[in-house]
């Protein structure tokens, strides 16, 4: 167990959330093409940060920093982490951040085609989730000896949490596609907007049920109850932000430029979405760490009985 490594992993995870916020600010300010070249901006490493170049080049600089942090994390993992699968996950994160950088370059070189911009936004969330997973795996709580508990209830909390994660990710992908379908001066496409609203209802139902079931069955287990409570609370905030963002975004095409509160609400909605997804990852991983199916329990009981 290496507390320093865990703390550094959490730091890189937080830096990635900051990077997602920076990326969301680029989109909301319509700054994605402020620098027509890539990877440099106006052919310079440090151009004069005026106008929207502040957001676009700032995003590139933060992304570079996160890339470097991910390399350092990998070096640390390969030197100090005894579990090969954790080291491999770190390497996977590094590949993701490289691919993400190239996708970012493609968005600029291809003038923001929808599929590239949406893929860039989705890969950002997956990269964030990978770092969240690494933070969970390197945590002392994960590595200490724990007695597993037999799953109670008719529906498995482990698979409910996985379903909540998958559904939340699809919802974020829909949100990213919706967001990149129209700039601030255009109205959002109705079909995608309706799909995103439907997705919100489904996430509310599935994640809400997962949280309630977790609290009902394992409310006395802080290891599970804490992420469940956090997921529920952040989901509530996210739904409110969603409605406010919709209202602000619909008024935006009448403005002469991207303005607050549209910018801050939209960025908060993106960041909060990432946090909801992160909490489903934490809940699912911890559920798999702590819970086992009743069949596994029965088989283990029979095996122990046969041995004795």
């Amino acid at each position: 167990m290496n507390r320093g490594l865990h703390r550094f992993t959490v730091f890189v995870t937080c830096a990635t959330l900051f990077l997602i916020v920076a990326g969301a600010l680029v989109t909301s300010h319509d700054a994605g093409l402020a620098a027509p070249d890539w990877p440099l901006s106006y052919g310079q490493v440090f151009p004069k940060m005026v106008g929207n170049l502040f957001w676009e080049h700032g995003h590139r600089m933060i992304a570079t920093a996160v890339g470097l942090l991910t390399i350092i994390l990998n070096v640390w993992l390969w030197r100090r982490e005894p579990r090969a699968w954790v080291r491999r996950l770190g390497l996977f994160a590094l590949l993701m951040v490289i691919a993400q950088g190239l996708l970012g370059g493609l968005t600029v070189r291809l003038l923001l085609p929808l599929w590239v911009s949406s893929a860039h936004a989705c890969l950002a969330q997956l990269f964030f989730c990978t770092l969240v997973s690494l933070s969970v795996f390197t945590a002392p709580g994960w590595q200490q000896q724990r007695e597993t508990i037999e799953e109670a209830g008719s529906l498995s909390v482990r698979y409910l949490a996985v379903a909540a994660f998958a559904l939340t990710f699809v919802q974020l992908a829909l949100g990213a596609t919706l967001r990149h379908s129209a700039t601030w001066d255009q109205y959002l496409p109705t079909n995608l907007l309706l799909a995103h609203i439907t997705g919100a209802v489904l996430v509310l139902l599935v994640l809400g049920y997962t949280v309630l079931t977790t609290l009902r069955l394992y409310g006395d287990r802080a290891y599970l109850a804490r992420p469940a409570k956090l997921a529920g609370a952040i989901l509530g905030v996210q739904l409110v932000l969603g409605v406010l963002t919709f209202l602000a975004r619909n008024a935006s095409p009448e403005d002469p430029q991207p303005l607050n509160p549209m910018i801050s609400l939209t960025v908060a909605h993106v960041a909060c979405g990432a946090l909801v997804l992160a909490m489903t990852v934490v809940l699912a991983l911890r559920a798999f760490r702590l819970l086992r199916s009743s069949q596994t329990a029965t088989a283990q009981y029979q095996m122990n009985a046969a041995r004795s």
Partner: protein
Amino acid sequence: MLSQRARFWLAVSVMVSLLAFSLACKKKAVEDDEVAEDQPAATPYKSKGDEGTITGKVSLNGAAPAPKPIDMSQDGACVQMNANPHSDEVAVKDGKLGYVFVYIKDGQVTGGKKVKDYSFDMPSQPAVLDQRGCRYEPHVLGVVAKQTINVTNSDPTTHNVNVQAKSNEKWNQSQTQGAPPIVKTFARAETLIPIKCNQHPWMKAYVNVLSHPFFFVTKEDGTFTITGVPPGTYTLVAWHEKFGEKTAQVKVDAKGTVTSDFTFDGGATAAIEDSSLKLMPAIEFPMLGHH
């Protein structure tokens, strides 16, 4: 540190990513080249000396929307050139509307073909789109396909010129203070091409590319005059960024002048027609309808 297999897959992944990246960029260049080559050959129009004129006025009925303040504080150079910047896409004077693009959309030349099937003499001068005072001048521009357009920067700051064409080549190019003009052409007819500066997101202009020279952008007095029109029957369109499109049928007689006036309704905006609010009655929020 890394196993041999891990190193192998790492190298493969990086190579595949780089290959995909370069292919994607190359594909765009190929698509851009294809744009100019698939236009049918048009018959050169031979003047008979009996061309006519279309003239008229564009009015705004009702109150014009109030100009909205623009925050230019992110670029000191823009602030210095604009004491009290406001949106100016609705230019109204005495009820007459500027920045309206009036053009022949379609029609039949008397005793001949459709107007789109002819080619006309190219304007002798290039069109100019200037970036001045962190605005585009003019806000609405009309050009003939393949006519040279010079994009200039008269500002003491850097702009990027982001041309969001659909049928023509899309391009995005930066232009620093004092840089030479960006010289471009549009290969084919396409109306309402937005041009944006992403550095200064309030900067927006529209370029309209036509296959013929029969267009006019109204000034503040709302008047337009289109000369040299071959006798025929045409669909005349007046388009405004905020108020949408109006059409009229006009018949131009030999050496004649026909008048066609347009009136837009100041209470209705073009944008709301396509709004998601309008299409979603179940979740309609009337207070945001901008009426």
